[in-house]
């Protein structure tokens, strides 16, 4: 996508009732999260502990990864390492070819989205069926997920009803969620039973035991993994936890912070392949090890992909996930995206209100990283000319007492007297969708001079 976040957001906002529904629905999810968190008296301690465990992981990542690999191999799994998306996709294709598989099912994995796995496999003549209901819907529609936990949150039931009518032959005009879910259940049950390979993402990988943990509400990860003889689990290398007991901390946080549930319906622990089955684990770097070197942004590697920062973000809720253009939308996506190449405007799609940092279960200071990114992008001249000039001019204006006073006076006069057309010239991008405040009669400085109570007493 080449258009900017602001342009995409404007498109999203053009349909006001839908935008309002999106905003309100995600806010309800945020409120459920608050209720679930408030139910746990030690919630803040859990966040602290989760953050400390992730710090420990990042400082010893090589050690834990090797420990994990050794344990997984001992359990009977085969482990692959991929430096980037291309290598990951090739590894996946090789496994599929080795097993001569035609029927492949996949449960949710943001990593495979990040690496463009479906698209690559399709180009090689291999079809993958996404089995999470939301993902199946958007796969039918050739769309990208607009939220990492609620991939089809941008769609209304009527649209889904139409898609299912076309693809699954459901009744025209029937958009009852239960009816549509039953139709998907029947359709995907056939896919599960025929599956030769099941692909999953990974929520947590435990170094101590070599197990991978996957959390779902639908049970699609297990329906796939337990039907197909071959299971492949794909993980970003930051998914490691040192010990099994660490899962206690993270399983208490994840679902509560994501959807407000106490835990997902299924929390599955895969250790060994099935009798006569095969189990593969693919560990993917794709830019993660490079980020370790950057103390400003290393914290973003702690993310457990709960989506909490999206649900709370006033910009995300009112612009929709697709407006970001990057595979992971919202505040966390805006710090994970490879900015300097493709997404230089994302760190500016934020009010810096800090709500994302407040809800983050692993205490990533998301809004501070957004702020750092803005500075870095400005320095590397990745921002628009207009923004750079405006910043430079503001810097000059604010750096001298007399300049500041004069400009203040000019601005007060201008806002009060200039015609609207002149004030809202296209260079005033701030004024698009915003109204200038009424200009006060005097500056605060002038007001203080005449109204300062202490001065009055002494004089």
């Amino acid at each position, binding site marked *: 996508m080449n258009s900017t976040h602001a342009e995409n957001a404007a498109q999203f906002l053009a349909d006001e009732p839908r935008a309002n529904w999106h905003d309100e629905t995600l806010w309800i999810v945020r409120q459920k999260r608050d209720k679930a968190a408030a139910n746990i008296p030690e919630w803040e301690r859990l966040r602290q502990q989760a953050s400390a465990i992730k710090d420990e992981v990042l400082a010893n990542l090589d050690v834990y990864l090797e420990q994990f690999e050794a344990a997984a191999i001992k359990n009977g799994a085969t482990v692959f390492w991929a430096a980037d998306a291309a290598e990951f996709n090739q590894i996946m294709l090789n496994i599929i070819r080795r097993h001569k598989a035609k029927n492949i099912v996949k449960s949710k994995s943001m990593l495979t989205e990040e690496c463009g796995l479906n698209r690559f496999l399709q180009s090689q003549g291999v079809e993958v069926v996404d089995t999470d209901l939301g993902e199946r819907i958007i796969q039918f529609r050739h769309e990208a997920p607009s939220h990492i936990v609620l991939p089809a949150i941008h769609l209304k039931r009527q649209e889904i009803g139409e898609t299912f009518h076309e693809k699954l032959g459901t009744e025209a005009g029937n958009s009852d969620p239960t009816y549509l*879910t039953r139709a998907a259940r029947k359709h995907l049950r056939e896919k599960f039973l025929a599956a030769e390979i099941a692909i999953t993402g990974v929520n947590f990988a435990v170094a101590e035991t070599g197990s991978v943990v996957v959390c779902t509400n*639908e049970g699609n990860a297990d329906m796939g993994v*337990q039907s197909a003889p071959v299971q492949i689990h794909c993980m970003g290398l930051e998914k490691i936890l040192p010990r*099994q007991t660490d899962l206690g901390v993270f399983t208490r946080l994840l679902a509560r912070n994501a959807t407000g549930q106490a*835990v997902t319906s299924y929390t599955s622990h895969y250790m060994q392949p099935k009798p006569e089955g095969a189990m593969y684990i693919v560990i993917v770097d794709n830019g993660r*090890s490079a980020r370790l070197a950057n103390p400003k942004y290393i914290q973003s590697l702690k993310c457990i992909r709960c989506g909490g920062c999206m649900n709370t973000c006033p910009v995300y809720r009112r612009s929709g996930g697709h407006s970001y253009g990057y595979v992971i939308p919202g505040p966390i996506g805006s710090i994970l995206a490879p900015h300097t190449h493709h997404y230089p405007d994302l760190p500016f799609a934020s009010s810096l209100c800090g709500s994302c940092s407040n809800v983050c279960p692993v205490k990533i200071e998301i809004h501070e990283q957004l702020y750092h990114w803005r500075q870095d992008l400005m320095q590397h001249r990745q921002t628009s000319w207009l923004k750079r000039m405006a910043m430079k001019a503001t810097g000059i204006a604010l750096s001298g007492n007399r300049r500041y006073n004069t400009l203040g006076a000019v601005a007060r006069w201008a806002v009060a007297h200039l015609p609207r057309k002149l004030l809202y010239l296209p260079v005033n991008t701030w004024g698009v969708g915003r109204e200038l405040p009424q200009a006060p009669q005097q500056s605060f400085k002038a007001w203080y001079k005449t109204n300062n109570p202490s001065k009055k007493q002494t004089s």
Partner: protein
Amino acid sequence: MSKKTILQAIRRNKPQSTMQSAQEDNYRSPSWSQEECKSLFIKNLQLQGGEIGTLAELQTQPVDFTREDLRAEYANAPLEKLNRLESVLIEGNFGVAENGAIWLEDKDLPQRIIPFITQQLIIRLHPSAIVATMHDAYRKINLTGTGYGVFISGPSKTADIEQCLVYGAHGAVKLTVIL
């Protein structure tokens, strides 16, 4: 294979802090009595869409996997046969009060897919086998030598269509727990 390159990059780039290991698992669970654990478990299970029932109330006769002969019969059953399962009974290992989850693992299951592929899942759980929190649960689990284990806290569910809650996305449509 890129293992070496990746590990080298990590060693080069990782923070060179002298950071201690994160505090060992020192969380002490609330001192809920067995009775309190049981009532919290029931409340949380119901919140997740699970039901509490008795064997007598069941409308269909489940395939009883607490019986060794039936476990053996289904150990090698093909998927088509498993796909016809209407209702199964499984002995649960232990429950978790704070979220209504129940732990099942390989030794409880003739095949791993059974709790998912059946239309209705019935789990029998001893009322004294309920721990307070997930911390206690993970201290209790021994995965060594086990190939697979799962916490189940309700029927399969989805809210992917306009956030409307629907039970029975892919797995069991109904979960009943017999205490």
